[in-house]
């Protein structure tokens, strides 16, 4: 997706310090009209902080923020054309659902008829019509979250900001609401910026994912690209569950062909697509558990006989831990084909699907 032609939200050189602690450092981000961007990263990496900066709830230290082509760096939150949904819902406890929805409009002096119309529309979209007269305390978590989304919806904003809106809900409700949010996005086609540290949410919802760490965006790309071609070891390890297997070793050249070596283990890299000109030296070889085949016959560029160490059933799939030389590898197989602990199996993979990282952690 080409994002930069006419960005809906454009963040330039954004820096934010809390006192002397830098949280965001010269961050640039362009988000296209109607795009669904997910900010993903470990706790404390500055996702909420970035969102609050976009919303105008924090005073930034440096940089500029544009929304719809307008420089809003010094604008009040209400003038930025944004709606925000918080993790804790943040519904006004003493007001009914209807009052919660209408509060912003009343403050803005919207005519009564218009308010009623917008509430009716939001209630219809979110299916909360029968809840309008209730207080937030009398709602379930999922209903509260819908009302919180409704509050952003009625204000008819250009950009939706979500700060971990589903993380207070149980797993089942979370997956239901996830689908609803996706549907909402398809229906409204607004720009949405969504913070989460749940990678399933990120993968399923996002047009593009921005993986953050320590206030810096590590990789900004489509979910598949992030999954298949992580730019560095951090992203590779952060995305994917169960996590990627890493083998420490080195890159060697033998007779014009590159291969990866770690002790006795030698993996030919003829099918691997290098991002940069390879040089001999230390490297880390990464392979996702689901990209390793088990007893699946011939045809792999690399295969080996191994012993099964531990078997972890996960429902539909089973995670099989095997020992390959000195290394422990996890292999993901359909549960009905799971081997027994201690049995001998053959594993194989295609290095094309691997990720190689240099000494500095960047993709080779």
């Amino acid at each position: 997706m080409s994002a930069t032609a006419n960005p809906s939200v454009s963040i330039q050189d954004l820096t934010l310090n809390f006192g002397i602690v830098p949280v965001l450092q010269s961050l640039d981000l362009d988000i296209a009209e109607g795009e669904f961007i997910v900010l993903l990263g470990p706790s404390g990496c500055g996702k909420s902080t970035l969102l609050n900066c976009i919303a105008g709830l924090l005073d930034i230290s440096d940089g500029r923020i544009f929304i719809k082509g307008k420089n809003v760096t010094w604008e009040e939150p209400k003038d930025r054309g944004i709606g925000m949904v918080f993790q804790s819902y943040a519904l006004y406890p003493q007001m009914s659902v209807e009052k919660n929805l209408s509060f912003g409009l009343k403050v803005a002096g919207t005519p009564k008829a218009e308010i009623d119309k917008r509430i009716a529309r939001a209630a219809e979209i979110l299916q909360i019509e029968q809840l309008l007269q209730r207080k937030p305390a009398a709602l379930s978590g999922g209903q509260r979250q819908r009302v919180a989304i409704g509050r952003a919806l009625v204000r008819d904003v250009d950009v939706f900001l979500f700060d971990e809106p589903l993380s207070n809900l149980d797993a089942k409700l979370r997956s239901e609401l996830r689908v609803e949010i996706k549907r909402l996005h398809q229906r409204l086609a607004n720009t949405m910026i969504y913070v989460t540290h749940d990678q399933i949410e990120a993968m399923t919802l996002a047009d593009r994912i921005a993986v953050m760490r320590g206030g810096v965006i590590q990789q900004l790309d489509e979910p598949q690209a992030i999954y298949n071609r992580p730019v560095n070891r951090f992203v590779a390890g952060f995305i994917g569950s169960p996590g990627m297997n890493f083998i420490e070793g080195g890159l060697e050249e033998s007779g014009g062909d590159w291969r990866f070596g770690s002790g006795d283990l030698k993996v030919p890299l003829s099918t691997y697509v290098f991002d940069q000109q390879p040089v001999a030296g230390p490297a880390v070889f990464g392979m996702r558990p689901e990209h390793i085949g088990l007893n699946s016959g011939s045809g792999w560029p690399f295969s080996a006989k191994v012993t099964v160490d531990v078997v972890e059933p996960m429902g539909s799939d089973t995670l099989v831990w095997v020992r390959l030389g000195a290394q422990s590898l996890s292999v993901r197989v359909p549960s009905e084909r799971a081997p027994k602990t201690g049995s001998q199996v053959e594993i194989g993979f295609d290095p094309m699907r691997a990720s190689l990282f240099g000494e500095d952690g960047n993709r080779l």
Partner: protein
Amino acid sequence: MATPQTLEQFQQKCAAVLRPGLRKNKELERFRVSVKNGNALAADGPRGPKPRHAFSKRNIFIYGTLFVVAVYYLLPLYVMVVTSLKGMPEIRLGNIFSPPMEITFEPWVKAWATACTGLNCDGLSRGFWNSVRITVPSVILSIAIASVNGYALANWRFKGSELFFTILIVGAFIPYQVMLYPIVIILREIGLYGSLSGLVVVHSIFGMPILTLLFRNYFASLPEELFKAARVDGAGFWSIYLRIMVPMSVPIFVVAVILQITGIWNDFLFGVVYTRPDTYPMTVQLNNIVNSVQGVKEYNVNMAATLLTGLVPLIVYFISGKLFVRGIAAGAVKG
């Protein structure tokens, strides 16, 4: 009895154990262990609520202590009430603990309407109305200002807010006596010395540190995201305060009202320093009645006057005691 082997033995054992106070804990414990160590009847071990003994050592100690403390506080009150209902001849008999033989409300009427305090003889009623005219505006004014202060300090971290807060807290620790005279001068200069409004101003200022602290802590304990949501919704300083914060803060307002009503109503020092005889609050008048040197000491009138003066805070406590405790706890948890 040995470790039970048969069902009968076990039932006997159970009966013995369940009769409270009959068996010592040690034996019960031994029995439990034996059951645990593979006794066939293990499944019939204790179940359901653990029995509690009404007269355990612990309970006797707790209730005993509470009783003593309660008597300690209630006895003087009892003496005051019975004395205020006796006539002077009966009081002279000397037995202060005996209930009145003949109940009379004469002392109460006298204390309220005709007792003499120095110059005038219209009882406590004058002081009562003065106190009302002091307390009501002081309470409203101080709480209005302090709650806005606390809100601004908790939610709008403006430049210098930390410094401002520190100064306020230091202010709470300066002894009142140090400031008495400077305030006399200030009030004289602005022409409020001796008037009720002057005292209202003084009370409002002196209530400020502790009330601001109370409100700041309470507002800081409210979820910050609510405040952010209101800002995104476009609400400003005052509309967030009035429409979001205040409706959520009823308990802490109740606490503040109680603190202020009792504090200001019971105040003696400021009342005696900053007012004149015709604007004396009730406490000062009470003192003048009780300490007046002319004539015989009318203990019953003094007691009645004291009870009358203490009635207002007492009533406030009874009406809102529950809310008070809840609000104090809520304000204290997070800071």
